[in-house]
């Protein structure tokens, strides 16, 4: 009686297709494939299925990927910041070791909230005016108490200029060409007098020639400062509201129409 040919298992064929067999086993499998049309056909089906799956997946996912230029420029800027910091203390860490753990946890939670709500925000207010991009400017705060916020007169705090090299990094991250730069003001998303940092994660280019412009945002910042220092609004809420949707915050605290 003739012995029925022993075919390769599906598992073995997949391992062979993926190059995951030992050298010895691979040689045996290859020898079998040379001799067995049936297993060769099964191997062809596996290869075709993999190729079709990869093609479908890439077609579906690649069309959703934004161009790489903006994220690359942003990473460059953030790497420069990180490189300037002491090795081992990345730029988003806080400068006060004793308080670092709790503050970092609060910061992470805050950024998380911002990520969620800003995603919603991005899809709802685009028709009303310019907005920071979540992937580039999620908003970032430093540890600060209400007493520190209210100790200084607001004007003293916000008069700090943003260095030119940082402005250039922000423009590069947002894909703004040098010729267009004078149409924008690089602005803090969360103003420093409410605890916003001078990191690129808290800076964005705001156009001058729009209804909801930097002057309007200044009014909101002034109002939030007054509310926080008047103990009518907690600092975290003020930070979150201005980071998530500053136009919405303006309407909430100052009314529907922007005042210049």
């Amino acid at each position: 009686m003739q012995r029925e040919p022993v075919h390769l298992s599906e598992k073995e064929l997949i391992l062979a297709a993926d190059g995951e067999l030992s050298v010895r086993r691979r040689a045996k499998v290859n020898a079998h494939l040379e001799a067995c049309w049936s297993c060769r056909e099964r191997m062809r089906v596996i290869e075709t299925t993999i190729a079709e799956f990869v093609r479908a997946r890439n077609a579906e996912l690649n069309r959703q990927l934004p161009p790489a230029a903006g994220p690359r420029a942003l990473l460059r800027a953030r790497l420069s910041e990180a490189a300037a910091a002491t090795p081992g203390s990345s730029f988003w860490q806080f400068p006060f070791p004793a308080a670092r753990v709790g503050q970092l946890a609060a910061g992470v939670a805050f950024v998380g909230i911002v990520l969620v709500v800003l995603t919603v925000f991005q899809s709802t207010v685009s028709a009303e005016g310019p907005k920071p991009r979540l992937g580039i400017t999620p908003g970032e705060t430093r540890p600060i108490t209400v007493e520190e916020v209210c100790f200084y007169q607001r004007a003293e705090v916000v008069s700090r200029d943003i260095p030119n090299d940082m402005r250039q990094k922000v423009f590069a991250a947002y894909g703004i060409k040098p010729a267009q730069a004078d149409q924008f003001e690089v602005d803090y998303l969360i103003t420093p007098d409410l605890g916003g940092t001078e990191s690129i994660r808290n800076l964005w280019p705001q156009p001058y020639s729009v209804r909801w412009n930097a002057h309007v945002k200044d009014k909101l910042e002034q109002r939030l400062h007054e509310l926080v220092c008047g103990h009518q609004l907690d600092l975290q809420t003020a930070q979150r509201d201005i980071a998530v949707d500053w136009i919405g915050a303006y309407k909430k605290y100052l009314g529907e129409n922007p005042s210049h």
Partner: protein
Amino acid sequence: MPIRSPIEDEVVALFEEFRAPVIRYMLAFGLPIADAEELAQEVFLSLFEHLRRGKSRANLQGWIFRVAHNSALKCRLQLRRHSDRFVYEPVLSMAAADPAPGPEETLAISQWQQRLLSVVRALPEQDQFCLALRAEGLRYREISEVLDISLGSVAASLEKSLSRLMRAEQT
């Protein structure tokens, strides 16, 4: 003008190579694209710190995906905790829900490919991760390290997933 360190250039080169694969992988967690993009930045900033501290350079691809996997898990957990709006919806499932795919996209994804993607959506999450990592070029050993499962589990998972995909072709 500040001098760039060679590590910065190296990290940017790796970003060029792995940004798209990392984001595609993180989309399998159902994260919004903007969050995946931001997490990718964090992954490569972590890589910069890793290299700057002189830590191991062995298998940086595996390292990148391991950090990406853990970051995506944490981000998804955080989104679920802080928002009742977040609904797990792997991005591959959005294809069918896209209200107006362009003509090129319609042509690009055949019915057969759509069927394959729907089979993938029906797989258990870990099998989807295995398949996604394999599709991004990771070897079984690397996948087992990223997902913290045995080599045998990776092989079994891929066999199961590919068998289902092949059966979809035959029906």
